[in-house]
């Protein structure tokens, strides 16, 4: 018998039922011990383990929930009538109130998480094994139970030390506040009031934890056998109190942060920034917190706050102050006679409506992805990009119609070429960049792939920059037209809007330049043989390129570069083992194009990101997350500096090598006497998670 596999078997003399007596009187210390243990299991459940291995191992909770009680009154640690003398004492009643509220908390949590996109098992287990977690019972019933329990605890007839009394009361208080905050019906306006009281009470729970006394018998794996499930019983998940406590604290902090969402400018681009910053919080937010935020995002009050999110987005990016989006267009009614042509403005409104409706799903998919854990975000984005690629094709059809109508109206020069296509394309390119950057963040790429992937990133952001420059030119034209027409406030609006485009251009420029600099730096390191390069007998560079480009192969545009072109870029001097002689000449010459391009790109990246910083958070549409935004921009700037240092380190080392360099390079790390340290993810050694800058050390 394999005890790991056959955990369902009973050992000799083992009984199926637990012998623990839930009606036996317990000490105040034990109440604390049990409550804290329950908290540990509750948090273990929050991190993704099933109830069967966590909370449902509690004999007390089991008794409350099974056999299924018809009413809350029936949910006791016993069923039916008990003789007066055997009724549970005050402390058991207090524990019961706590447990009831805890179960209701679980009910709220499951409802919140299942109400949004989540992934069973990966994120969270919603299985309740046919136990009903008081779904139908309203919140106030539990609040009353908790209040009554606090009253019982405050009764001076109840003899116990004041520290124990306080410790138990603070746990009941916590449970009440927590339950309230988890309530599904909290009004949006007051959301931010719910979390701070919990956080301020947490310390008192933490500091009194040592008063508790554990009651191991009150938890049992045996209960799993009675839960409807196909998997064999698995061990109880033990999360230490201090870890559980940290998780709880993190959950409260994250949820409190999420409530700030409700006070953001009603602007989809601000929402997007907020979601991205939230997803990359460290430690990564628990599934509940992510669902909490997603619920806010999809709350009707938020979704209906602006006209339509995609429409606002389109206006901001490509149609500033445009007749195409003029509200008046929507006030025309079709001619009575369907054979007569529709008024042009009505045609515009219909075309825009058609496009916005077409945008709905891809737009929603994008937002859904932003609400996932970052591993999944990266994977989902690759699919979302495919959806946007199709959207782009459809956008071009609508664009053609729009152009026809505005030409008829004699307003062709007020509109940029193919605005909707441009809008989709810009976003799609951004998503591709994000995918690659997330790949770096998650250590998907190995060091010898860095050069190629940063090159690809640079290529894509370079494309985005070109697109944005066309948009920017349009903003300039549009502002001038409005000035000439004496529509000065409108002209000023367009000029304001141009600031956002300017921020995007600088950012794309920065990404492209830093990407290019890193690509060439890592390429040099490969030729110098100081980066590890696995032998890979079963693979080829072309196959690996295909694998890396897989998510993007079907896109048009941007077309993935042909392998040969890509190879020319990442192997400019031929094979790494056998570079052409010009490599040694270039690498030793501090003034060669090889080095001066690298320097120029680093300089340019620095200037670009400094410009982003200067244009500011609000213009970047990151006004709601300005601190995090500023930290990120500074991080990238620091990466530029670090790269400058690394480049200088390698260059000066190679320059000193003189005529012996050929041999030194043959010998790799030992030959050159330099080593390369790659800062891994999560080690806090990167200035920006997506920008991996190797450190040059003595080898």
């Amino acid at each position, binding site marked *: 018998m*394999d005890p*790991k*596999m056959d*955990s369902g078997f009973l050992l000799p003399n083992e009984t199926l039922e637990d012998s623990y007596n839930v009606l036996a009187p317990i000490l105040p210390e034990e109440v604390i011990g049990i409550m804290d243990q329950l908290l540990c299991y509750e948090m273990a459940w929050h*991190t*993704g*383990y099933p109830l069967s291995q966590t909370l449902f191992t509690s004999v007390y909770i089991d008794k409350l929930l099974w056999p299924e009680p018809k009413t809350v009154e029936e949910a006791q640690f016993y069923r039916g009538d008990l003789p007066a003398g055997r009724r549970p004492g005050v402390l058991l009643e207090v524990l019961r109130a706590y447990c009831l509220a805890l179960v209701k908390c679980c009910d709220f949590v499951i409802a919140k998480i299942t109400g949004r996109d989540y*992934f069973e*098992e*990966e*994120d969270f287990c919603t299985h309740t094994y046919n136990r009903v977690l008081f779904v139908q019972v309203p919140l106030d019933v539990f609040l009353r139970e908790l209040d009554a329990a606090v009253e019982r605890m405050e009764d001076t007839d109840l003899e116990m030390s004041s520290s124990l009394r306080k410790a138990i009361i603070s746990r009941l208080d916590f449970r009440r506040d927590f339950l309230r905050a988890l309530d599904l019906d909290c009004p949006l306006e007051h959301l931010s009031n719910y979390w701070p009281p919990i956080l301020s009470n947490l310390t008192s729970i933490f500091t009194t934890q040592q008063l508790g006394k554990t009651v191991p018998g009150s938890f049992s794996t045996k209960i799993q056998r009675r839960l409807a499930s196909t*998997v*064999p019983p*698995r061990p109880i998940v033990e999360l230490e109190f201090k870890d559980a406590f940290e998780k709880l604290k993190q959950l409260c902090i994250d949820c409190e942060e999420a409530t700030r969402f409700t006070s953001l400018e009603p602007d989809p681009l601000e929402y997007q920034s907020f979601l991205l910053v939230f997803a990359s919080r460290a430690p990564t937010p628990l599934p509940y917190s992510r669902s909490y935020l997603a619920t806010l995002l999809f709350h009707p009050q938020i979704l209906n706050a602006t006209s339509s999110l995609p429409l606002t987005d389109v206006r901001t990016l490509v149609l500033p102050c445009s007749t195409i989006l003029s509200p008046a267009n929507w006030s025309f009614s079709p001619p009575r006679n369907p054979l007569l042509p529709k008024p042009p403005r009505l045609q515009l409104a219909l075309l825009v409506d058609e496009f916005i409706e077409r945008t709905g799903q891809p737009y929603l*998919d994008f937002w859904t992805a932003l609400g996932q*854990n970052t*591993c*999944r975000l*990266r*994977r*989902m984005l690759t*699919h*979302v990009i495919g*959806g946007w690629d199709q959207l782009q094709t459809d956008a071009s059809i609508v664009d053609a119609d729009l152009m026809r109508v505005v030409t008829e109206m004699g307003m062709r020069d007020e509109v940029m070429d193919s605005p909707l296509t441009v809008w989709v394309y810009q976003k799609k390119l951004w998503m591709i960049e994000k995918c690659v950057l997330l790949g770096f963040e*998650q*250590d*998907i*790429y*190995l060091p010898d*792939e860095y050069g190629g992937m940063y090159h690809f990133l640079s290529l894509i952001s370079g494309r985005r920059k070109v697109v944005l420059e066309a948009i920017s030119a349009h903003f300039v034209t549009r502002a001038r037209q409005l000035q000439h027409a004496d529509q000065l406030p409108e002209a000023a609006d367009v000029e304001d809007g141009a600031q956002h485009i300017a921020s995007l251009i600088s950012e794309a420029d920065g990404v492209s330049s830093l990407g290019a600099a890193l690509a060439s730096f890592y390429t040099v390191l490969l030729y110098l043989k100081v980066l*590890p*390069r*696995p*032998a*890979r*007998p*079963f*693979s080829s560079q*072309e*196959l*690996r390129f*295909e*694998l*890396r*480009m*897989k998510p993007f*192969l*079907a896109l048009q545009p941007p077309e993935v570069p042909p392998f040969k072109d890509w190879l020319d870029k990442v192997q400019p001097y031929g094979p790494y083992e056998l570079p052409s002689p010009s490599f040694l000449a270039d690498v030793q010459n501090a003034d060669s194009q090889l080095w001066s391009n690298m320097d120029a790109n680093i300089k340019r990246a620095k200037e670009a990101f400094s410009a982003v910083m200067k244009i500011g958070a609000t213009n970047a549409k990151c006004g709601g997350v300005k601190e995090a935004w500023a930290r990120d921009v500074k991080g990238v700037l620091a990466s530029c500096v670090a790269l400058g240092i690394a480049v200088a380190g390698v260059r000066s080392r190679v320059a000193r090598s003189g005529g012996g360099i050929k041999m030194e390079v043959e010998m790799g790390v030992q030959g050159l006497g330099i080593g390369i340290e790659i800062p891994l993810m999560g080690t806090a050694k990167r200035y920006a998670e997506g920008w991996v800058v190797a450190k040059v050390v003595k080898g």
Partner: protein
Amino acid sequence: MSESNHAPLNADALQYVQYDGDKEESYLPAIRQLISKDLSEPYSIYVYRYFLYQWGDLCYMAYDSSSTLIGVVVCKLEPHRSGTFRGYIAMLAVQEAHRGKGIATKLVCMAIDAMKARDADEIVLETEVTNTASLKLYERLGFMRSKRLHRYYLNGNTAFRLVLYLKPGTASKSPSGDMMGGGYGNMGPETAARGDGVMTDARSSP
């Protein structure tokens, strides 16, 4: 970096054998024992049988001179819903005392060769992000990390999906006919990942 810079002599003194269903009685218990020692996730006998009944010829074992099983690799190979003919390395283990001698490398190479010979487009597997030995072994052979899978294992650990393309054009293959996967909703890579095992519990975790 050379592929066999670790005492190859030692590794070669061993006997490498292909699994043989006729000898299940002698092979299977030893395989189970070897693997269950290293993997935290329980595998039922059905998981082993699932692989060995259908793809016994993709299972290779290493025996020492006293006929003790010291290493094993278990795989499968079948059409995947992405349209590729996909190999999957389900389990790999080498007895602790014999690690670092290239035994696992040799076993995996044999499995790859066998799958190649049977026209596989690609080979995939999952391994914990912290399993340095396993990552190093596969990456040296040519596998690439394609995905990070948050909380992939039942013990809550995160995994990398590793992929090795064997043929050009693999990335562009598309599902044919009824293998067409659903929309984007159920396209989550975890379905792909977990779809690789018969049951969700079939995950190779050390």
